[in-house]
């Protein structure tokens, strides 16, 4: 752990870049997954093939996907961003669709019968009730993106992976350790924050 403490500034900087990359990817991924999840929840005919395709993307080894993207787009931030967004889709779309499908049918019938338009029903009833499931999806997506984003350094997009690749190149296990431990810590903290948000979003279920 010597490297970590002697180069705290640099490690913090790389950690910040790592976090930024994941945050941008998560926002973009959610923006794409939200409409897809809503459509999937409404129709089995769409959900089954859609989750099939997204699931297939999810199983591509991340290094292979990055290598392919590099030949198309070249090195850099955008390449990693696309890979992270693509990986996030499966978990996000699946959880959004599952959350909407789990809304009590009576609440949906009441909303329709009372005169909510389908947009109002989605925004005021279905998405709020699906929120815990959606946050669960965000949590899993964020944690896996933090791990995958260590490969960003491989295509020149920086982040904590930089330390790991330097360590490999210069035979300095200290750097590998510093990069890995920080990425793990980041994942643990983000996981805890999302769990907290999930808990807050379900308070009405146990309200005293």
């Amino acid at each position: 752990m010597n490297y970590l403490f002697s180069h705290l500034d640099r490690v913090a900087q790389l950690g910040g870049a790592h976090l930024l990359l994941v945050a941008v990817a998560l926002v973009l991924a959610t923006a794409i997954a939200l409409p897809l999840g809503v459509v999937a929840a409404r129709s089995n005919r769409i959900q089954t093939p859609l989750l099939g395709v997204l699931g297939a993307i999810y199983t591509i080894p991340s290094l292979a996907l990055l290598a392919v993207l590099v030949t198309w787009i070249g090195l850099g931030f955008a390449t990693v961003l696309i890979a992270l967004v693509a990986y996030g889709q499966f978990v996000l779309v699946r959880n959004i669709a599952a959350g909407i499908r789990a809304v009590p049918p009576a609440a949906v019938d009441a909303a329709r019968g009372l005169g909510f338009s389908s947009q109002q029903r989605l925004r005021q009833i279905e998405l709020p009730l699906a929120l815990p499931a959606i946050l669960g999806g965000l949590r899993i997506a964020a944690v896996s993106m933090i791990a995958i984003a260590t490969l960003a350094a491989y295509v020149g997009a920086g982040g904590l992976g930089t330390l790991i690749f330097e360590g490999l190149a210069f035979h300095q296990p200290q750097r590998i350790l510093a990069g890995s431990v920080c990425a793990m810590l980041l994942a643990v903290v983000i996981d805890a924050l999302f769990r907290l948000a999930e808990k807050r979003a379900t308070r009405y279920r146990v309200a005293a």
Partner: protein
Amino acid sequence: MPAGSFAVLVGPSGCGKSTLLRTANRLVVPTTGRVTLDSVDVASLEPTQLRRSIGYAIQAVGLFPHMTVSRNVAVVPELLGWTRDEIAVRVDELLALVDLDPTRYRDRYPRELSGGEAQRVGVARAIAARPRLLLMDEPFGAVDAIVRTSLQDELLRIARSLATTVLFVTHDVDEALRLADRLVVMREGRIVREGTPVAVLEDPQDGYVRDLFGDDETRAFRLQRARRALPA
């Protein structure tokens, strides 16, 4: 169906009561025939606007679990764009009307309500925006007999005080006789007998209708009770 009446659709499960009820607010669109409200064909009205002018209460209640009691009751006034103050006043008024103390119940979540309390909130939500028609699909089907009787009493009182037309679905014959001033007996998607409870019991006109109200002795007892319930 005349305005201001309390009509009850009664018949066994699967006879089309709920389907008929749901044609009134276009949750079900009939393949043939027309549904008119104040002599306007509902098919010519925008469904969400139509539904906001009609109260809707169902057996499963369908309170929105993430909203407090007051927000549940306020949904239709909010959809109609009432002001915050109007809504706050109306919510308290409605909770009092269904016999729930506003200060105790306003901020509770549906999770914290008993079956009977939830159903009262469901009724308050249905009548919040003073609908001209109130649709109720077995609203008291899931509560125990004692609570059901008191809910029925309150509903009769509320319906009279609001002068709202009520269309009520039940498979419970006694509930139907108790609430209806107009009884509609259904079988396999068709209306087989229609009239006041006393008229239907006195002259069922049809073996199926007669049997629905029990053997001769039970029917006589029910007729006696129905006559007694008539306003003197």
